[in-house]
């Protein structure tokens, strides 16, 4: 088995449809577009929106395929790097733990998708998340995946938990809260390893934080995730702080989201 497994070869059964990010964003049923959710017409994801339930269904499918890729990414981190030379055993043990968590998240999200009336493969998948997990530097990989993408997962799960609460859906609210707890743990793993592995390497730290910004920017979706009242996915300060983010770092993500929104409106 090779080291570094390419995203285009991720193994899927016939139900999965792979699209580029551009194609997926153009899908009129997609989470971002459905309900007129363009950058000029954003709205927080609530059951009261005209297409709120459909948007939530699409988002849940996106969560499911995201969890598969997060599982695959964590698994590859167990395999791709040499013990001792490149990463310590403790890091691989954390990644193996994350594999188990992500496998459970797949089970939870595919069950929730069914609970919400969605079929597997109803929406397309892109491999952006896994691509971030292909970085050949383990520090950059962990920063991009565990801090940027798992950080986004904190925001998404908290938004879906609130959606479940507002919709009177205790199953959705219960499950999202459990997944949220795991995501805080994963982001904290990323924060801890970033600190430990770059303790005496400022250059590597800077590169890792820059890579995190690139990934954060990619997933800011023209202001899709932010702190404004009408941001569909709400940036979650409290849980990000628990996971090792500083106030300044959270401010920066909020600013990035506003900038992305302004750019999209220009």
């Amino acid at each position, binding site marked *: 088995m090779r080291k570094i497994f390419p995203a285009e070869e991720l*193994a899927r059964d016939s139900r999965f449809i792979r699209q580029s990010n551009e194609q997926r964003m153009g899908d009129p049923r997609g989470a971002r577009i459905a309900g007129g959710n363009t950058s000029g017409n954003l709205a927080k994801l609530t059951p009261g929106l005209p297409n709120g339930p459909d948007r939530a269904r699409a988002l849940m499918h996106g969560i499911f395929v995201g969890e598969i890729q997060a599982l*695959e990414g964590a698994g590859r981190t167990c395999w791709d790097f040499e013990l001792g030379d490149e990463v310590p055993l403790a890091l691989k043990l954390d990644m193996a733990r994350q594999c188990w968590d992500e*496998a459970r998240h*797949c089970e939870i999200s595919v069950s929730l998708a069914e609970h919400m009336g969605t079929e597997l493969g109803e929406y397309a998948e892109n491999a952006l998340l896994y691509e971030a997990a292909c970085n050949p530097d383990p520090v950059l990989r962990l920063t991009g995946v565990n801090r940027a993408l798992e950080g986004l997962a904190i925001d998404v799960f908290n938004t879906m938990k609130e959606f479940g609460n507002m919709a009177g859906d205790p199953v959705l609210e219960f499950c999202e809260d459990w997944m949220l707890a795991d995501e805080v743990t994963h982001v904290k793993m990323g924060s801890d390893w970033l600190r430990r592995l770059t303790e005496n390497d400022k250059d590597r730290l800077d590169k890792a934080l820059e890579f995190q910004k690139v990934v954060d920017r990619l997933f800011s979706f023209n202001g899709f995730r932010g702190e404004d009242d009408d941001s569909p996915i709400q940036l979650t300060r409290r849980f990000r702080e628990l996971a090792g983010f500083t106030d300044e770092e959270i401010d920066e993500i909020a600013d990035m989201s506003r900038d992305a929104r302004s750019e999209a409106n220009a």
Partner: protein
Amino acid sequence: MTDTKRPREPFAPWDRRSLPGLFDVDETAERIGYYKWAEIKLFEALGGWVATVPELDVKLRLGTHCYHHAWHADLFDKRLPELREMQTERLTVPPNDHMVEFFESMTEPEAAHMTIEKLVGVYRVLIPHKIAAYTYHRNGTSEITDMPTIRILDFILQDEFNDWREGEMLIQSMIESPEELERAMSHQTKLEKIMLAAGGIAGPGSIGNPYVEVVEKN
């Protein structure tokens, strides 16, 4: 009122544990180093394979089992310093070159259509050999002096049996034709031959020697 001065034996009548065991401290540390090495190689492989298997249920089981074996490696790693091995990496080695060859062959299949081979290597060859070696160790070591190892092996064996059962059922569910059966058997034979040369996951003597040496009389 209870007579607090009335003497009792240190071992209750039903407690038949005994002091002697098959392994001294150094031998125990050496074996645990071999086990840890194998658990690390296994969890790395399971993690790596997740992206390569298209079957959703298999993908999720591999992700789950990956953690089980990482946890085993961690348990063994923590036991080594208790056996006077402070540089745990020093003993985290394969018992011989055949064991290295075994893992290289086991992890060779990558293509999406080779899930049967991936599962057979782990669940029909490696895990049964691990269960055998761990059981031999668990049953042979001193039940008093080395109880911490027995406790670890008991936890681990519980995982191994559960994972073996799940893996075996996945294999049975995937073999649907004589050709697939042949593939499974052929791969199993290939790996078993290497494991035979290795002598088991802890090398020769992994499960002891059942034969009696007969001294010829003149």
